[in-house]
């Protein structure tokens, strides 16, 4: 989780990723940032994020992104 927060903070330094829970709906993360984020996560955590998982509910908070990573690791 710490590593994920590090990646997110590098992409968007002005956002408090421990508290914000509407990263997509509040437009904190736009489509381009998502592209970087997905590429970084895949490289760092050795998972593959299918495009079907790129939905607001999976990316609205650091917690939900972490849950997605955990789910993909199990598969």
């Amino acid at each position, binding site marked *: 989780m710490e590593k994920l927060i590090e990646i997110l903070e590098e992409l968007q330094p002005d956002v408090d990723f421990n508290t914000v829970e509407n990263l997509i709906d509040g437009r904190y993360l736009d*489509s*381009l*940032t998502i592209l*970087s984020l997905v590429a970084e996560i895949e490289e760092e955590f050795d998972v593959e994020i299918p495009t079907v998982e790129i939905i607001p509910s999976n990316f609205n908070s650091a917690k939900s992104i972490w849950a997605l990573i955990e789910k993909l690791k199990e598969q």
Partner: protein
Amino acid sequence: MSYFDPGFIFLAVPILLLIYNLVPKKIRPIILLVFSFGLFIFISKWLVVFLILSILTIYFVANYLDKLNKKRNELINEEPDNKKAIKEKYKKYKKRILILGIIINVSFLFFFKYLNFFATNTNLLLDLFNIDFNFKIMNFLAPIGISFYTLEALSYILDVYYEKIEADKNILRVALYLSFFPQIMEGPIARYSDTAKDLYAGYKVTYNNFCFGYQRILYGFVKKIIIADRLNFLVNTVFDNYHTYSGATILVGVIGYTVMLYMEFSGTMDIVIGIGGFFGVKIKENFRQPFFAKNISEFWTRWHISLGQWFKDYIFYPVSLSKRMKKLTLKARKVLGNRFGPLISGAIALLAVWSLNGLWHGAGYTFLFYGMYQFTLILLGNIFEPTINNTCKKLHINRQNIVYRVFQSVKMTCFVFIGELFFRAPTVKVGFGMLKRIFTSFNLHNTLKSNQLFTLGLDIKDYFIIIVTLVVIFIIVILKEKNHNIRTEISKKNIVIRWMIYYILILSIIIFGAYGPGYIPVDPIYADF
């Protein structure tokens, strides 16, 4: 045929509702299916064959994909150590089946919509190289709504492929999802998971659903009959003879077209959502106050939402997150930084989205130009966003300030006007000609002095009716933007006020509606796409 045909909305639909409510619950979806196919055959005759072929292909493709998923899972359970290899093997199988389903459905669309465009352009090329051969140009009438139902068909098999949903074993439910009569002409492009279950549930038409449905339909009528149909003559006159008008009059024509398009399309969506509501089907909104958007990128998340979402889910992300693109993004980020790194793969995906989006609207250079115009604006917006942000910080401009927000919306609306000018213009050359006249021969003084605006088929009463109705709609739009549920609020009022509102709506359509001699109703614009 249009949903605004009084015979359809005030006779055929009520008869359908009556029969639907009288028959047993199990039969209700069949009634909807028969009515939907009846309407399709009424409009497109034997071309219904292509709708049936689309239904059959997606039904069998989806079920075969499901079978492969199950087989793969069984094998993984039997040989867990071989998981990766089994997954890869079945991914290949699934991809082949998916591609087959896509090719069949897209080829129908290509045949009816794009064959002539490509044949004409190939002939021009052959002529250029003095090759004595020409493809025959044939005039086909396309099945109604083929652009809409094809995207729905593709989304269904893609969602099954991605294992987002399971394939439906009931072919009648698949058929109803693809052919549901209010959505067939102008969308919205629904996802299987959004509507199919409710469509087939056979919910009874309740008094509340009936009232809410007709309220929404009446609101759609106000937009279409009072505004869009009234503006039709003005728009046609200006676009057909632009060179005889001043820049000011052309600008009025362009604004008029944008308003007409918005009123016609969103008015039709009101009807579609109203009819869906009768049967307890929640059809997703296709518009969300688009002119409140801050920039073009946001505009496309508020205008024709279902199309934008379709391209985002099935083109933008699959292209920009393909293996090669992800590698490119990682490399580019190291060189260009966080902001501009993903821009290269993003731009490539965006180019694919807007080329296809332009062509989806029609086979012509104006549509392709329109797509490229939107692509350029969105790309420039992304490139300059950090610069604008920094400049605002330095100048202590609060970007949430109401003045700044109004400035953003006005700027965005001007870009929309230019886009719609090219969208409606018969050729790109004419589009540039019109744009040039707006900037070089504006002549506001002479336009007003010579009463040019009153030579376009509208008199002062017409302009007055349009402006007053637009002000009322604008107030409703502001309330919606502030999250007010107007229909629920109306339903809480006492019966006198409630019926007063209904009567005002009905009477205003009857009295101020642009119908009868002297008016030509707008054809369902999006039904042609």
